[in-house]
Every structure is written in C-alpha cells, then in structure tokens.
C-alpha cells in the first residue's frame, strides 16, 4: 500500500508536467493577443511589445521555463533563501504598509483581471468548489443509496418504479434546466431559499442539490443492482435462515458488499463534482473554480488557463489515489 502511494506521488509531477506542456502548447496556439482590450483604446505598438516582454509572451521557451520556475516554487525558495523576500517585506513595513503576499507556488498574474494573481484567485475559489462538490456527493450518496435499497427490497414495486423514473429524469435533464427550475420554485415563487451567492448554509443548498442529482441517480441504480445481486446470494440466505433481523440483513450484510461498486464510482464522481460544476456555478452565481476555467479560455487569460488546469489535474490524480487506497483498505481482497 505504501509502495502504491509513493509510486503515485512520484508520478504526480510527471503527469502534471505533461499536462502543463500540452495545455501551454494549445493555449499558445489560440489566435489573438491576451493583452489587448477589445473595448478599450489600443496602446502604441512599442508599448504592446514591452508588455508582452514583461510577461514573456514574446517567446515560447522563455515563457515555458520562467513559468515552471515560479509555479514549481523554485523562485520562492531562491528568494526566501537569499533573504530578498524578507528584506522587501521589512521595507514595506517600515513605510507603514502591509507587505505583498508571496505565494510558494506563484502561478503568475491574471492578464484580464489586472489586480489579481492566479494563485490568489484559485485560493479563493478552490474551497468553494471543494465544499460544493463534497456537499453534492454527500447528498447524492444519502439519496441514491436510500432510493437504491428501497427499490431493491421490492423490485418492480411502485416505490421501485418511482425511484427509477426519478433517477432517469435526474440523469437526463441538464443541470441548467433543473437549476433554473429550482431558482424559480424555491427562490422566487416560494421564496424559501436565496437564489444565488455563497457563504451561508442556505445559499449552499440549491446549488448542491442541483449538482447532486445526476450523481444520486447513478448511485441509486448502482446500489439497486448491487443489492438485488447480493440479496439473492447464498450468504444472505444463510443469514436470513439463521433468523437475523431483516434490517440487520439489509444494512450489515447486503449493503456492505453492494456498496463496493458505488465506492469505486465515488472517486471520479467526487472529482467531477468538485471540478465540473461550471453550469451550476453560473446559474446560482457561485464563485467557484469552474467559471474561471471557461472565462479564462474566453479571455485568452493564459496564466489563469494554465493555473486552473494544473489545479484540476492535480486534484484528479490525488482523488484517484485516495479512492484506490480506500478501496484496498475497505476490501482487503483487492491488492
């Protein structure tokens, strides 16, 4: 197990490095000048050239390596070791100012939002996306497993059919339809919940539920199938024959095994919930990572594109690792 973790952690920088190179090549090839403001006045040619040079946008190799230098933390380490960072911070304090923040992994400035650094943008958005994703997965598991068990206990009953139909709708309807519907019903007509924003628990409910629906539907179907299988297996029959209470049979014996396929689905599902919530973020005005991804591409904001891709890919690798580890730990037969 430890070997697995070590191996994967060694692979991580390699994978991220390859993704970085590919993303940069693609983003570099996008036509257009990211420094140009389509609505504003154009600066003279020479100024534009100097601005490009400032961000190393005039040369691919220069950009490639200088970005790696600061994003990997090497530049931070150099500045800290040499004492330059401390010197500058001291000078700021002496002038009665708050020293500028100095992130370890400096992902560069945002070219569109000139007052922001990419590291700062991501640090603000990541907790939002993570907590939205986690809440959605928790809701999905609670709803999905309950629905799956109910359906499996009495297959083809009314309850089973009802959950299957709801699950089908949950998978089929895109979240911008469901989200808008929720805004209309719970936000505007019933005025029970706020329609947007982020920060309070009540603001989290609608986006999390919207985001959870397709996952809940999938989990319900996985659980139902697993439960029907295990409920017909020999050891369950044995347990029943021994006179174990039905509730005990379902939860302790059957569900534990029926849950394994759900668990393996939860790894990629959690990653998807945390990173793929763009539409939900838009509908409910949630300040998460997903919207930056799309905006950055639209604005040709090179630094932000790469920053978001790097964070997403690192998260994916780590979450997959976590699921593999968990799997082995829960079910020692594997590994």
């Amino acid at each position, binding site marked *: 197990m430890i070997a697995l973790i070590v191996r994967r952690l060694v692979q991580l920088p390699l994978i991220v490095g390859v993704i970085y190179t590919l993303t940069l090549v693609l983003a570099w090839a996008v036509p257009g000048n990211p420094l140009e403001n389509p609505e504003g006045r154009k600066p003279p040619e020479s100024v534009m050239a100097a601005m490009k040079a400032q961000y190393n946008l005039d040369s691919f190799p220069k950009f490639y390596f200088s970005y790696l230098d600061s994003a990997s933390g090497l530049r931070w380490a150099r500045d800290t070791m040499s004492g330059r960072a401390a010197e500058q911070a001291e000078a700021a304090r002496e002038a009665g100012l708050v020293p500028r923040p100095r992130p370890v992994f400096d992902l560069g400035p945002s070219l569109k939002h000139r007052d922001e650094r990419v590291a*700062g943008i991501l640090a*603000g958005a990541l*907790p939002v996306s993570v907590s939205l994703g986690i809440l959605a997965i928790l809701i999905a598991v609670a709803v999905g497993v309950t629905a799956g068990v109910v359906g499996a206990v009495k297959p083809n009953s009314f309850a089973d059919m009802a959950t299957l139909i709801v699950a089908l709708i949950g998978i089929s309807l895109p979240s911008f339809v469901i989200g808008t519907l929720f805004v209309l019903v719970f936000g505007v007509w019933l005025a029970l919940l706020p329609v947007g924003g982020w920060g309070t628990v009540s603001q989290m409910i609608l986006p999390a539920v919207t985001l959870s629906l397709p996952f809940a539907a999938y989990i319900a179907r996985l659980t139902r199938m697993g439960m029907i299988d295990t409920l017909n297996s020999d050891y369950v029959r044995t347990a029943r024959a021994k006179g174990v209470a039905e509730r005990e049979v379902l939860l302790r014996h059957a569900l534990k095994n029926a849950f394994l396929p759900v668990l393996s689905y939860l790894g990629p599902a959690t990653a998807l919930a945390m990173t793929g919530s763009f539409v939900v973020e838009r509908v409910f005005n949630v300040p998460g990572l997903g919207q930056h991804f799309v905006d950055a591409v639209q604005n040709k904001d090179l630094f932000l594109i790469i920053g978001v891709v790097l964070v997403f890919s690192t998260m994916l690798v780590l979450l997959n690792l976590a699921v593999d580890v968990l799997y082995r730990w829960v079910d020692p037969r594997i590994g």
Partner: protein
Amino acid sequence: MLRLALPFALFMAILIGVIVSDRPLPRADLTFSNGTDITTLDLQRMSWTQDMRMARIIAEGLVANDVFDPDYAIIPAVAERWEISDDRREYRFFLREDAKWSNGAPVVAGDFVYAWRRAVLPDSAADYYTFFEYIDGVTAFFNWRNEALLEFAETTAKMSAAERADEARRLWEETQQRFAEDVGIEIVSDRELVIRLVRPIPFFLDLCAFPTFYPVYPPLVQQYEQLDTETGRIISEGGWTKPPQLVCNGPYEITVWRFKRDIRLEVNPHYWNKDSLNIRSISAPSIADPSAQVLAYQTGAVEYVADVAAPFRREMVALKNEYYREHAAELERLRGLGLDPYEIDRRLPPDPRQDVHVTAAFGTYFWNFNCMAKLPDGRDNPLADARVRRALAMMIDKRIITEEVRGLGEPVARTLIPPGSVAGYPTPEGLPCLSDCETDEERRALIDRAKALLAEAGYPDPTQMPTIELEFNKNSGHDLVAQSIAKNWQETLGLPIRLAQKELSVFRDDLKKHNFMTSRAGWYGDYPDPLTFLEINRTGDGNNDRAFANAVYDGLLDASYEEPDVAARAALLFEAERMLMEDEVPMVPIFHYCDVRMFDAHKLSGPNPHPRSTENIFLFDVLGDGVGTDTVRTMPAGWSE
C-alpha cells in the same frame, strides 16, 4: 462498515471546516450590483464604467462635480480652493490640510504628481493618456520617452547585462529629471500645486474630477514598480489595489475583496469629510448574469442595480409605462412642477413596477457614413457626396427603432450631443426624419425632398444607385437596427441594400481602415464640453472612423480653444455641430443612450438622473434605516432633462 464511514466523516469535517472558516459578513448598509466584475482599480489604467464607479467610492481628486447641480458644478475636494490665471492657462491648487490617506498620512501635492507621471509614461499604456496632453510639455515628454526607449533597445543590444542595467538606470534618472523640468506641473509645497496648460481648456477642472487624475500613494505603488534593466522600462505589477495592501484617500476603504464574490467597503476613518456620509458600509457582490442581477434585486439581496442589462428589461420598462398610465393625471401634475424623475416616483404610490428607471445618458447611438471619395477596395463611394448623406439621414424612422426595435423608448436624436447635457450650450435643430412626420402629406414631402437631393447628386433614379452597405456587429441588437434602417431606405427610396454582419474584431478593424459604407456606432462623452463629442470628427482624429475632413469644421474647433468668452465660444461650437448635423452629415444620430437602473426611490436617495450620469455611490442614503440623515436629495425643482 466503520471503514466505509470514514471517508464520509472526512468529507463532513472538510465541509464544516469550510463553512466555519468562511463566515458570511453582516449585511452592509447598502448592497449594490456594480454590473460586470472590476477589471482594475489602478486609477491611471482604468477605463471601464464599473471600475470608475468603484474608483469614485475609494478615491478623491483635487475637485469633484456636484451631481445634484443642473450644471454639475465643480466643488472642492482634496483642493480646498484654486486660482486660475488671467490667461486661463495656469491653475494653482491649494490642498486642504485634513486630506488624509487611509493609513493616516497626509495627501500632498507630490502624490498627485506621482500619479500623473504614471499616466503620461508610455510604459504604463494608460487608456486616458490623451487627457494629460492638455498639460504643457506632456506630449513632448511622452514622445521623447518613447523614442528614448526604442533607442535604448538598439544601443544596448550588444552590451553586457551590467552595462545595460547601468544604462537603464541612467535613462530612468534622465526621465525623472525631464518630467520635473519640462512638464508644466510644479510642486510649490506639499499643499500647493501649479499646472500650466498648452492652451486654455474650459473643462480642465472637470478633467481633474475624473478618476484618471486622482492621486495614488507613492510609497505603496513603488513597491510594485521596478525598472526592467532589459528594456529600460518601468514595469508595474497589479495587486496593490487589494486589501490589506491598498491605501486610498476616498470616502470609503476596501476591507474585503474576494474575487468574483464581493467587495466590501467601510468608511475610511481618515476621510476629511466622513461626517457627510450616510451609510457606514457598502457591499458590492459580484453577479455576472444580467438576469440574476435583476433577480437579486427582486429577492431583496441588493438594493441598487447600477446597470440593468437583462434581456427582459424592455418588458420591465413596458410595465413601468403601464404603471404611469394608471397614474397619468398625478404624473402630469408632478412633471409640471419640474421635479426630477426619481422624485416624481417618490411622490407616486409605491409599486414594484416603479423600480426600473430609464434616464438619459451622456452618449449617442448613431450611424456612420464613410466620407472618402473612394472605398479602400477602389469602388466609387456614393456617400462622398454630402447630399446623398443628407437624403439617407432623413429617410430613417428613428421612433420605430427606439420604441419597437429596442423597446426602451430612448429619446430620438437629431444631434450628436444630448440636448441639455452641457451647461450653457444650445442645441442645433438637426435634420428631420421619417418619424417627425405627423401626416402622410408631410411624409411624402420629406421623401420627395430626399429624392430631390439624390437627383442633385446625380442619382435621378435611386433604384439604379450603387448598392448601399450597412455594416454592424451582431451583438446588442445592432442587427435589428440595421434591418430597420435598411427597410426604411428600401421602402422610401427603393435603394439597393446589402446588410453586412461582422464579427466584433473584424468590425472594429474595418472601421479603423474605413473599409465600410455605413456602419453602426456610438459615443459617450468623457468631459462636460461639446468638444468631447465634436473632436471625434476632426480631420485625422483617431476616432474619426468616417474619414470626415473639413477645414472649416476643424477651424471652428480650433477657434473654440482660443475664445475666452463663454457665449461666443458656445456659438462657435454650436455652428460646428450645426454644420455636422444639418449640412455635412458624416453621421446620422439615431437616439441618445439611456441608463437603466433599478432601485426603490421610496427607500433610497442618492442616484441622480442627470444625463452626465456620474454615479457617486458615497452620496447614497438608505431612507429610514436610522443611519445618516435619512433625507432625500433631488435635482432642484424646475430642472428637466
């Protein structure tokens, strides 16, 4: 089973951790939607409306406009008084002693000079650099620096890194010295600043009230600027505009700025005039979607929407008109009193339909006519003849465009400058158009007049004219306006028409290269003077997409700079605009832009309906909240748009 529960326990722990660590702030006294997200709060580099709106809350210039005065009169701000020399070229500002930065340091003359030097250094690429060219020596300094930098690149190409660094430092020394000696800005003392202009600029004080002219705190900004020894340029990084780093001198300071979430402002404890403020805290949540902004207002999440752009806003405006019709008699009476539109709403019964407000803005939507003799592709340009332009300009039904096509009912325009927006400036008559005709006879007469003009220009049969092209980009309903105009021209004159829809960047490129026949356009004024609109038609001006060139017109503009008498100067500019709108017609104004805002006039005071539409959010007062004076401020009675 326990092992299975562990990941979920971990999830719960993370979730609770995030919720606890990310506690929402208490509700601010005023919450408003600022339209789109802030691009930058770097005062010298900003150009977007939402940035300017925020800048006015956190920063203050030498002087300000009184936004409740019909003339937008200049009032003291950081400068408590000023003197203007007899030749009107020298401005001497005396700074108030109690003007302070948010860290308690005094605001001194050098802070303004530092900010203005940033704006005129080509290194900064400031959007509004041209405003500083009115100051003596700025143009020469800018050009010298630009050339020196180009020269630097050439002469240092073969030098070693150390030599180049030395050369860069020497150049920067020289730049600072030249700015101090050659530019007409003089620091007499910490509290006295003298500006010399290239010529008398009647609106120079209004420029001083513009955010690009606001000061920055040099010790702060210097931390983010460094000399690039490779290119010899000053490189300035962003980031100092964010809390806790930011030091500002305006009524409020930013305490929290969470990107794409919200900006939180509290009263700047060192602001000299903080006793005049009627709200203690302001919050500007970031709401990207225009429909969601309206929804946020309707559910009570925000009290003010600065720019309503929701696709259903025309329906909202229709509902307001319906409400007005229900109270027609009372409305008529209140309008007769000359009250401002927000005050009228306050005196009518409260109703949610009331809360959308459409007021004239300082801008005009118009259609460009290319004035060049030949188009770039070599074709003869029929629009080179002013008579053709006049004929086409008259054959547009402008009312249909504002009321049916756009549905906002903006005021129909006959002139470039919105009437009444510039104090002491009379508005020329302009050309009539189809929607001015009340009867069929009038309409036929106008069409005959247009046909006669075309015949004079050598087109007795308009159907045989070269195809007239209408070029536009597809967003914002320009396509519908183009279709409406095309229909007018076809039905009245039988002209052959081609609609050319372009992608925005291609469209802009075509305009710059004068590669069009007619095209959609618009212009917002930057300062309260007719010149802010008229200068765009000067021969060779960077914004003269029409390639209009007329020596008489240019001469009138030049003369206006030298004319000291206010009335005589207004007459010169009036003649220039009259010539533009009635004789030469390089463009046909369609309508004057409107601002669409949302707020409950019974609950909020502070927005002003003046067509200059400068929004000073720091003047807002939430009525009846027990904070501030809770009194209504309005335009004086008798004022009208």
